[in-house]
């Protein structure tokens, strides 16, 4: 068959190095996108499993598991408030001195002020 012939054919790659062509400028932009910040880590799963274990132990009656339920609800409440705060921070983009973790809007403000060297 023809195909087998082409498969087993020895290809002569060029020995000379490929010349480098610069299509885009070799420097970073003064802008970051906020795509990566939307991903959430797995929050309150542990608390949920503890609650489910307690429910299984006490025949799915929530009177025995009030402590675990409160822990779980507090955890959910805490993270939902954190998320709200984060969204507000992203919207306003206000800079806090000494902060190590920055949102993408804050980074963009800083990059506008101090752009990359040309």
């Amino acid at each position, binding site marked *: 068959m023809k195909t087998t012939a082409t498969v087993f054919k020895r290809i002569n790659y060029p020995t000379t190095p490929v010349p480098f062509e610069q299509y885009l400028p070799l420097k970073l932009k003064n802008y970051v996108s906020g795509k990566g910040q939307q*991903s*959430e*880590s*797995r929050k*309150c*799963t542990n608390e*949920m*499993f503890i*609650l*489910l274990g307690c*429910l*299984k132990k006490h*025949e*799915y*009656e*929530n*009177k025995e*598991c009030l402590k675990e*339920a409160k822990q*779980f*609800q507090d955890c*959910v409440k805490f993270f939902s408030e954190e998320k709200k705060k984060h969204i507000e921070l992203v919207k306003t983009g206000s800079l806090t001195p000494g902060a190590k973790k920055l949102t993408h809007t804050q980074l963009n403000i800083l990059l506008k002020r101090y752009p990359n060297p040309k």
Partner: protein
Amino acid sequence: MSSLILKLQFQLLKSCNNLWTIGQISKYSQYSKQYVNPVPTKQDQQLLEESGEIKPLKFLPIKAACNNENSLYNYDPVVRKFHNFLMRGGNKDLARSLLDKAFENVKRMQLARYHKETDPEEKAKIITDPLKILHKAVENCKPLLVLISVKRGGAYYQVPMPIRETTATFYSMNWLIEAGSDKARTSRWHDRMAIELIDASENKGRVIKRKQDLHKQCEANRAYAHYRWG
């Protein structure tokens, strides 16, 4: 002339379009964003005054109170919510009369039990106030978790998720109402409802079973818990 009318119509349409896009959250609200919700009951107002949260509210415009919210001695927010969930086709009169009849039945049944009981210790435990029984029943029927179907990889999975306080209240009240409706054709809703309310307040009965079944399903589907984050 016709061109002028057209122009006017266009302007009207434009203003309407603007109206839809003012607030993404409350499209149909009559009030602008600065308006605050009213606090109708005196106890809540006192709480606000003690904590000092009333100070900023004094200088803000306040929305008009709903016509079923008031500061009367017999006002109860749980009963108000129950009326609203029970109402079908805007017939609030019927909803109120049905729940009142159910309360009457509860009172009669509990009083009969109270007078029948001979042991004084057991007698003290029997609650005869129908409002207290409703509060207890609604509190007992609230689920801790809820199952939500999530699409992952072309298949739908039932994923256990945390539940909000308002949603849990809705679930419990709706289950109670459905349990009342699930009856023989010859019996009445308020008769069935009285039995369900008393059962739920004592942590037994069909609605409590339904709540436990939901918890059981959540436990069975715990392997899908990580689908919450995609």
